[in-house]
C-alpha cells in the first residue's frame, strides 16, 4: 500500500540537509515501528521517496514524502506514533492512502507556495517596488547552467503573488518541467529594487506543494495531499 505523508520542517531543522532528512526519516520509521516495505537485494533500503528536496536554510510547512507500507493503522494512529519519536522542528501533519494509479509525488510536483520574508530594514527599502516588479511583462534573469549562462524570462513561472505584512507570498512553478527557485526570484527582485542580493537576508518558507489535476498541462493546481484519502 502506498501512503503519502505531509510534514513540517521548521526551526533549527532548516539546517539539516536533504540527505540527512532522508536518513532521519528512515530512523523515525524504525523508532515508530512503521511497517515500511524494503527493497529486495542484499542491502535492502526503505521504499520511500520525497516530493522535492528543500534547500538548506529553508523551512517547510507542507513537505511531502511517499512510502510503501506492508500494513498500516489509521491515519490518526500513524501520525501520533511518528510524532511521538520526532525531534524538535519536525512534525507529521497528515497521512493519506494514495488513490489507485496515483503517481509518485516527485513525478508530479508542478508548483509551490512560498513566503519570502526579508530582514525588516531591507523590507522597508524594497516593498514599494514589489508592485511594479511583479507587474512587468517579462522578468529577464541570467540562469547559470553547467555549461553556459543564458537569459530566461521567469515571469511566466510566477503563477501568483501578493504582499503580506512584512513579506511576499508567491506561487512558483516547481518540478521537472518548469522550475523557478525562490532564490532566483529574490535575486532578480533585489536587482530591480537597486539592492544587493544577500541570500541570507531572507527567510524562505515553502508552504505547500501542488500537482496538476489529472496530470494535464492545463489542469487545476491541487495540493499533493488531495491525491489520497484518510485511512480510518
Amino acid at each position, binding site marked *: 500500500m502506498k501512503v503519502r505523508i505531509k510534514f513540517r520542517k521548521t*526551526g*533549527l531543522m532548516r*539546517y*539539516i*540537509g536533504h540527505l*540527512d532528512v532522508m*536518513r*532521519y526519516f*528512515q*530512523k*523515525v*520509521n*524504525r*523508532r515508530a515501528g512503521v511497517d515500511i516495505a*524494503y527493497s529486495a537485494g*542484499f*542491502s*535492502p533500503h526503505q521504499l520511500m521517496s520525497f516530493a522535492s528536496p528543500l534547500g*538548506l*536554510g529553508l523551512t517547510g510547512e507542507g513537505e511531502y514524502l511517499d512510502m510503501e507500507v506492508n500494513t498500516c493503522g489509521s491515519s490518526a494512529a500513524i501520525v501520533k506514533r511518528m510524532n511521538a*519519536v520526532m*525531534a*524538535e*522542528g519536525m512534525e507529521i501533519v497528515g497521512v493519506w492512502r494514495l488513490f489507485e494509479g496515483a503517481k509518485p509525488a516527485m513525478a508530479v510536483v508542478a508548483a509551490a507556495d512560498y513566503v519570502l520574508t526579508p530582514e525588516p530594514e531591507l523590507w522597508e527599502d524594497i516593498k514599494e517596488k514589489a508592485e511594479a516588479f511583479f507587474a512587468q511583462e517579462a522578468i529577464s534573469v541570467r540562469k547559470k547552467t553547467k555549461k553556459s549562462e543564458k537569459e530566461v524570462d521567469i515571469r511566466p513561472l510566477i503563477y501568483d503573488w501578493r504582499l503580506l505584512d512584512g513579506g511576499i507570498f508567491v506561487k512558483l512553478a516547481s518540478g521537472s518541467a518548469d522550475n523557478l527557485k525562490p532564490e532566483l526570484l529574490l535575486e532578480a527582485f533585489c536587482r530591480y529594487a537597486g539592492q544587493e542580493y*544577500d*541570500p*541570507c537576508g531572507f*527567510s524562505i518558507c515553502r508552504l505547500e506543494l501542488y500537482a496538476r489535476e489529472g496530470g494535464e498541462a492545463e489542469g487545476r493546481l491541487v495540493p499533493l495531499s488531495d491525491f489520497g484519502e484518510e485511512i480510518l
Partner: protein
Amino acid sequence: MRSQKRKLALSHKILMSVEKPARYIGGEVNAVMKDPDEVEVRFTMCFPDVYEIGMSHLGIQILYDMFNRREDVWCERVYSPWPDMDKVLREEKIPLFTLEGQTPVREMDFLGITLQYEMCYTNILQILDLSGIPLFAGERGEEDPIVIGGGPCAYNPEPIAEFFDLFYIGEGETVYDDLLDLYKRMRARGTGRRAFLEQAAGIPGIYVPALYDVEYHEDGTIRAMVPNHPHAPERVVKQLVVDMTKVPYPEKPLVPYLKATQDRVVLEIQRGCIRGCRFCQAGMVYRPVRERDVEDLKEYAVKLLENTGHDEISLSSLSSSDYTRLKELVYFLIERFGERDVNISLPSLRIDAFSLDVMSRVQDVKKSSLTFAPEAGSQRMRDVINKGLTEEVILSGAAEAFRGGWNKVKLYFMLGLPTETKEDIEGIAALANEVARVYYETVPKENRQGRVQVNSSTSFFIPKPFTPLQWAAMFTKEEYLDKARTVNEAMKRQLNHKSLRYNWHEADVSVLEGVLARGDRRVGRAILEAYRRGCLFDSWSECFDNEKWMAAFEAAGLDIAFYNLRERSLDEILPWDFIDAGVTKEFLKREWKRAMEGTVTPNCRAQCQGCGVKKFGGGVCFEGQD
C-alpha cells in the same frame, strides 16, 4: 522536552556561511534539555575533534547519560569548531557555546575534555581559547570552569598538565559523584577554586597537576616529582568499575542528523583484554577483563535499536572473541532481528569457523573484506610483541574464508618495533604473498572472481606509557620511510605481487605522536607554540603542518631526539610513574625483558602473570573463584 524554540547562539547568516551547520545547533534525537534554573551544576563534555568524530564516541555517551541521570546536573556537549567556524567565531568575537543550551562554555561549572589521541592536543587549546578561558590553569579565576581531562591519554597527562585543573585517572563511572558533591558543598561555603582543587586531590583517582613539582636532572630526565600539598597523594590510583553489572548503560544514546563516523548502535560487551600484547596501552591500562552479563546485553541491544532507529549494531571490545558468551549473544541478535533487517558488525574478531559463519549471514561476502592484524611480519617479531597470532592460524583462517567466498583481505602491521631487522620487515611482504598463494591454492580457477586482493598497511610503532615497550627507542622520519620503502620493494619482488597492495602511514605525524605520548611537562610549551603558529586538527592530514610543529619545538627549546631516539633506562623516573594504573612497573620490566628475549607470555585466562591488577578485586583475576 522543556522548550519548543531554543535560541541559537549563531545567526542564520553565520550558519548559512559555514559547511554543515548541523554541527552547531544541537537538538538531536535523545539530546537532554533541562532548565538551567533547576540544576545546580552545569557540566560540558568536550570531544576535541570535529562533530562527526566526537559524536561517534561511546565514552561521551556513557558519561552524558550518567551525569544527566542526576537531577542536579545538566551535562551538555561541545566539539571542535571546524576551521571555517573557528574563523567566524574569532572575527565576530562569539564565545564558544554548548550545543544543548547554546550557552557560552565559560559559564559552565565544569568543562570535561576527553583525551582519546595525542594529535588532538592543539584542539584542546582552541576550545579553551574560543571559550575565553585562560589556557594555563594557573591563570584561571573564580569565573572560569574547572577544566578536567580524562580518557586514555590521561595515563600520561604531563605534556598537557598545565592546561588542566585536574585529571580523572580511570573509568568515569566511579568517582564523579564524589567530585560533583564536593564541588556543591564547597561552592555553598564559598571557599573558592584553589581550595576546591586541593580537596579534590584527596579523592582517589583525581590528579591536580598544580599540586606537584617536577625536578629534572642535568641530562633532562626527571629527578623527582613531589607533591607540594598534603592532600596530593604521591601516587594517583586508577579508578575502575569492579562489577560491570552495577553500572548503567545509556539506553537512549544521541542520534545525530549528520552522518557520524559510527552511524550505529555501539554495545560494549566487556572492558579490558586478556591478551597482553606488549605494544597495546588499552590492553594494559584497562585490565582486568570484566565482562558484561549476556542477559543484560540482550536487553540493551533491543532497547538501543528501538530507541535510536539505527539499522546496525556494533559489538565493542578490545578482543570480542574472548568474550565467553559471544556465540550466545550473536546468535540471539541474528534470530531476534533477522539476518537482513539489522546489520551486525563485529570488529576485533578472530577469524575462525564461527566468525565466518556469522559474517556470511550478516554481511555481503562479495563486498566485505576480512581483516587480520598480525602486527608484525615474522614470527620472531610477533613473539617480541606477544602477539599470539601464528602464520599457520592466519593462513588457515584465510583459506577458510576464501572457501566461503571472500576474496579481499586486509592485513595490518607495525614498523619500527624494537629489535626489528630487515628480515622482519621483509617478512611483511612474504606473509602477504603467502595469503595470496593460499587463495590460488584453495579456490579452483572456475570459481575465482578475478584476482584475490591482499591489502597490507603499516603504521609506525609508537611506544605508549604503561606498556612493556614503554622504554623503547623510536626512529627518525627518514628511518621510518626507509622501512616503508623496504616493504614496498619486497612487495614488488613477490610472486603474487599483482594481488598485493601496500600503503603506509605518514612518518612525521608518528614522530610527533611519539613525543606527545611519552613527553614530560615541558612539552606543553611546544604544544602552545604550535597552536600559536596555527596548528589545529593535527590528526587531519589536510590540516597537519609538520613545519610549524618543528618550528614550535625549536622555539620551545626542546629536542625531539631526547624524547624519541633514546632507549630509556629501566631505572629512569618516567613522567607517568606517579600514576598507579594497576599493572606494576615490576611486571612491565619483566615483560620488557621477555620481549627482548623473544619469549611469549600466556594470556590471563591461561596463566596469571601477577601483573598487579588483582588488587582491584574483580574481573578475570577472580574468574571461576566465586
